[in-house]
């Protein structure tokens, strides 16, 4: 069947063969230029972290060509170059503290959000609710409407509330607000995932003597796990990159990486290499996640968009 399909493809394409070559060239050049636009700023950041002042002012582009021989200058300022890694460095301590804060916050909040969100998504996918005038559709809409509330509206009351509750500048405070921030997205992705699992599977399990929760844990969870991982990773990315609430609700001890990065701007004499090294350190974890878990990210991002 598919063989036949391939044939018809070949036949229909034959008359345009002369133009296929130019088409090919156009496609590749368009893709190459887009890949260049995408990647060049990232390459530029990483390479600048190995530059000296002369390299920056002269606009040297390629490493190991001419003047640009590579230097640990930026990393040395962060205390992370090979020669300073074992020495005492206050900047490194600062960076590691921010890094640890970011890590705790952007793992803690997604875990909480999945723990609360997955059951909710399951319920919405499997049962017909009626809370007063509210049906499933209204509850779903309530969850999504959360996203429409601009963070600035929550900013002032959270500032006041957190001051009262002594949650200002605490990692726990950030985790709580990030949970709120990613919960609607987690529910959206998970419900999409649960909807694709036929209910007959659970009914069969229940006939065989599983309870609702037994069926959920033994049958539904293993099938829904990729969706759950996708929701979790997307939540991690959003939390890792979040700036507004972090800037607003933290000051010294709970500050996260985006806030540290943002504080690099403004001063007159910027040391480009240090800034670039810091930026590289801040994006590195997501690059690793992106390379190894790309298919989960794609799954999470496209949930509900493609039917």
């Amino acid at each position, binding site marked *: 069947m598919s063989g036949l399909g391939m044939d018809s493809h070949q036949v229909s394409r034959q008359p345009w063969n002369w133009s296929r070559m130019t088409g090919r060239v156009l496609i590749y050049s368009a893709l190459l230029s887009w890949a260049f636009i995408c990647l060049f700023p990232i390459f*530029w950041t990483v390479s600048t972290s190995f530059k000296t002042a002369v390299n920056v002012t002269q606009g040297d582009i390629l490493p190991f060509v001419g003047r640009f021989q590579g230097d640990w200058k930026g990393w040395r300022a962060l205390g992370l170059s090979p020669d300073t890694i074992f020495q005492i460095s206050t900047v490194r301590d600062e960076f590691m503290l921010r890094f640890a804060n970011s890590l705790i916050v952007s793992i803690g909040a997604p875990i909480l959000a999945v723990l609360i969100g997955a*059951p909710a998504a399951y319920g919405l996918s499997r049962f017909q609710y009626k809370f007063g005038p509210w049906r499933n559709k209204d509850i779903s809409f309530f969850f999504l409407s959360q996203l429409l509330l601009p963070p600035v509206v929550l900013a002032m009351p959270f500032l006041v509330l957190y001051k009262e509750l002594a949650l200002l500048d605490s990692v726990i405070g950030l985790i709580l607000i990030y949970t709120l921030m990613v919960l609607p997205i987690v529910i959206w992705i998970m419900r999409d995932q649960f909807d694709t699992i036929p209910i007959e599977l659970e009914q069969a399990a229940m006939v065989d003597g599983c309870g609702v929760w037994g069926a959920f844990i033994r049958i539904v969870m293993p099938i829904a796990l990729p969706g759950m991982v996708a929701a979790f990773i997307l939540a991690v990315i959003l939390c890792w990159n979040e*700036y507004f609430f972090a800037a607003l609700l933290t000051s010294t001890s709970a500050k996260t990486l985006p806030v540290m990065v943002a504080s690099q701007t403004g001063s007159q004499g910027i040391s480009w290499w240090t800034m670039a090294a810091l930026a590289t350190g801040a994006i590195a974890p997501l690059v690793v996640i992106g390379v190894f878990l790309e298919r989960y990210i794609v799954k999470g991002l496209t949930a509900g968009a493609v039917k």
Partner: protein
Amino acid sequence: MATRHSQSLARWAVAPAVIVLFLWMIVPLVMTIYFSFLRYNLLNPEIGGWAGLSNYYYFITDESFPGAVLNTLILVASVIAVSVLGGLGLALLLDQPFWGRGIVRLLVISPFFIMPTVSALVWKNLLMNPIYGLFAYLQELVGITPLDWFAKLPLLSVAIIASWQWLPFAALIILTALQSLDEEQKDASAMDGAKALPYFRYIVLPHLARPITVVILIETIFLLNIFAEIYVTSVGGLAGNLTYLVYFQGLLNFDIGEASAGGLIAVVLANLVSIFLVRIIGRNLEI
């Protein structure tokens, strides 16, 4: 049935999320509404009491308010236009069979994962800096006076950074949709001798209606609230949006009352935009 009991228990699975979101959303929202009617400035704690609608009045008559609304809308509209059109083109290219597609796809969506503060910092200081930036270097190479992007074209600069981040997102979603287009449908139309253009118009575009709708809605939500890019590039005074103006009132002027009023105006704007969008394009989407 033995499961009747556990089944009714399982129905409550949705409760924690509803309760958490309700508390965490309604309490602050009510507080914001309350604050917006108060004289509440952290710098003048002795002045208090009801302010009536004066917070709203002062926020709306602030000389930077019309500009902020305009900047917000321009930013949302331009970035969406660029990212949807560019993303569609890019997705159509990526959908062609070619060597190394998996890697290219990963590379192409990479800007989406870059921390907004990092991309703002990098674009500002390494690429668009009028003295040491790469663009200045290139402009000098062809003999043009380097452009001071953030002083001369602040809104465009922010839009460029945001487009760089969001175009890959649009491309990824549209590409996934293209790949889910039925192979048999493709073959059938190829066999019928369908030309490229009508095929795109009558088969591909309708199939893409839903993903494009989702892209527009999600991007609208995030772009209405764009903040890090404006704050880090310090163009807030020139091209600040509504979020920046609220931040300015609340955290730089410490006027909680007026900032709350501004925040509520931002909610109204967000809802107006989304109602408008749902009216126009939302028919493609049932939640």
